[in-house]
């Protein structure tokens, strides 16, 4: 079905540095990182240690000041902003702490948002969105708007929005931060199941120590470095 050679490394970072406030804050202070394709990695660490900044680098939302970064074989340091947009659109899926859904749109519509203007024809976008929502157990809430959904349901819609482009890497930044522990556990189960089904690489930033147990690998960050 697919004759491209799968890259073994999903993420390869060497000496990543990112500074803010005219260099006074080193959000990333020399990060070396290898994440294999299809792996489930958890990133832990205290607030302000650079976890979100690292995810922003991997998702090409932001660019490192120095260092080398390859994601799925793409050299992110060399990309134009147009290429980063298309990289995010085609390779990356993002789940945020808050669902960030548009309240006026139904679940099905929210999931389609990343596909607007893309090559996939309209009817197929709807089919994809509905199939994903059914897969995450929201088959009966396809037409529901976010305000009528529970926190866990909204995050599941947000996951579908992240998956609708069929990303190779799914990045989630404290996705259960706003959920109770039961919904949080269920969400991680779901993410891990989806990873296994699709073979995508899953990188989750979390404060929750129980996630570490689920993940194949846990990275600890401190002051812009990976400590373990």
């Amino acid at each position, binding site marked *: 079905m697919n004759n491209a050679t799968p890259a073994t490394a999903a993420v390869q970072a060497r000496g990543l540095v990112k500074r803010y406030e005219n260099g006074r804050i080193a959000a990333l202070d020399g990060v070396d990182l290898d994440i294999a394709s299809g792996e489930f990695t958890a990133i832990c660490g205290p607030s302000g240690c650079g976890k979100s900044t690292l995810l922003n680098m991997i998702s090409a939302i932001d660019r490192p000041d120095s260092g080398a970064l390859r994601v799925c074989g793409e050299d992110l340091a060399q990309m134009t902003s147009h290429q980063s947009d298309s990289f995010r659109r085609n390779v990356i899926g993002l789940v945020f702490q808050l669902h960030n859904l548009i309240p006026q749109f139904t679940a099905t519509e929210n999931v389609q948002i990343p596909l607007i203007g893309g090559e996939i024809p309209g009817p197929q976008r709807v089919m994809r969105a*509905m199939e994903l929502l*059914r897969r995450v157990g929201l088959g*009966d809430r396809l037409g529901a708007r976010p305000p009528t959904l529970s926190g866990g349901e909204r995050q599941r819609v947000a996951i579908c929005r992240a998956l609708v482009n069929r990303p190779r890497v799914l990045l989630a930044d404290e996705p259960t931060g706003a959920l109770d522990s039961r919904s949080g556990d269920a969400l991680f189960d779901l993410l891990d199941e989806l990873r296994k089904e699709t073979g995508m690489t899953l990188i989750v930033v979390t404060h929750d120590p129980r996630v570490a147990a689920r993940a194949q690998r846990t990275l600890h960050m401190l002051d812009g470095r990976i400590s373990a």
Partner: protein
Amino acid sequence: MISLAAGWNNKIGRLPAWPDTLLTQSPLGLQLIGMPTPRPLTLVNVVWKNLYRQPLRSCFTILGVSLGVVAIVTFTSLIQGVRDTIQSGLHLGGADLAIYQAGVAADILSSLDEDETRTKLLADPDVRHVAAGLGHVMPVGNQRITVVMGVEPDGFTHHLIEANGPPIRALDEASLGVMAARSFKKKVGDTINIGGRELRIVSVFNTGTIVYDAGITVHLKTLQEMLGREGRASAFFVDLRDGADVDAVAARLEAAIPEIVAIGSADEYHKVDNGLEVAQSAAWGVTLASVLIGSLIVLNTMWMTVLERTREIGVLRAVGWSRRRVLAATLLESLIVGAAALVVGALLGVGLAQFISVAPVASQFVKPTYSASTFGVAAAAVILLSVMGGALPAMRAARITPSEALRYE
């Protein structure tokens, strides 16, 4: 699904396809059979929904912008109406040219020697008939302003005018335009007091030209005498020989008779009356001002909207929307506001023009003409102001970076 995944892979080159099982395995898959599939979400949907978020604000913005459209539609249709009236008035009864005194600022001030001018006009080989007229505006009955036109009893123009009786022949006769007859409630056989004289109404005519139809014609000599302007005429209607070059004759007449201007169309009416030009420049001024004000309104609203949606725009950028798409969505929102304002403004503008045209005095002089070009001008103005007002907010929106937008939770 398979072909979709394959196409996607070919394009990216090295991405593994997702197993199709994920997308077909669905415990609730059968539930939707028979239900209508939702419509795909489009950029226009997104923009449209955005307008619904603050419905009142959107309405106020649309109303504010529509005022400019109202001004354009009302002014332009009334001015166009006046132009059309002038145009048809110049060709009253099949006349090819209208002759006025040169060097006057308003048609009503034109004064020429009746016999001398007629003789000079008839000297041109292409001039077939000449009919003299004396225009005046005076109170008649309870109507403060009425156009009274002194005409020659055997002028050529009479033959082509639709009337329910003979044209005036005697000094004590009058003929009324249909609108005047209606407003004075007079019919053939009645008398009407004009300037202190009782005149017999011999016919009611219908020229289709509002100023004439709202007016009264009397014998030229009667009006001359009434006004103390014996031997004077304000205008001459000229009928040319078939096949004559109207422009060439006009130029020849003006050269041969320096005290006159010859007018063949409304475009040349400024030679004898610059009221239309003044109105037209006023209209342009209003149009320009309304475009500027409209674009400021759009600018203000869209700027607020973009600031409010900073976080959301950041999310859109994070999930792969390009700067250009954000720019397009924001500009499209301005354009939809403009389009709505165009519709609302056009309706209000037509309403206002109609209202003005039935007002007491205005109804005798103007009847709005709605032409495609009027609405074309309004549409162009709306597009211009939407783009002008929307450009800055759209550029601001496109500059929002996801990393910064996502930081303010």
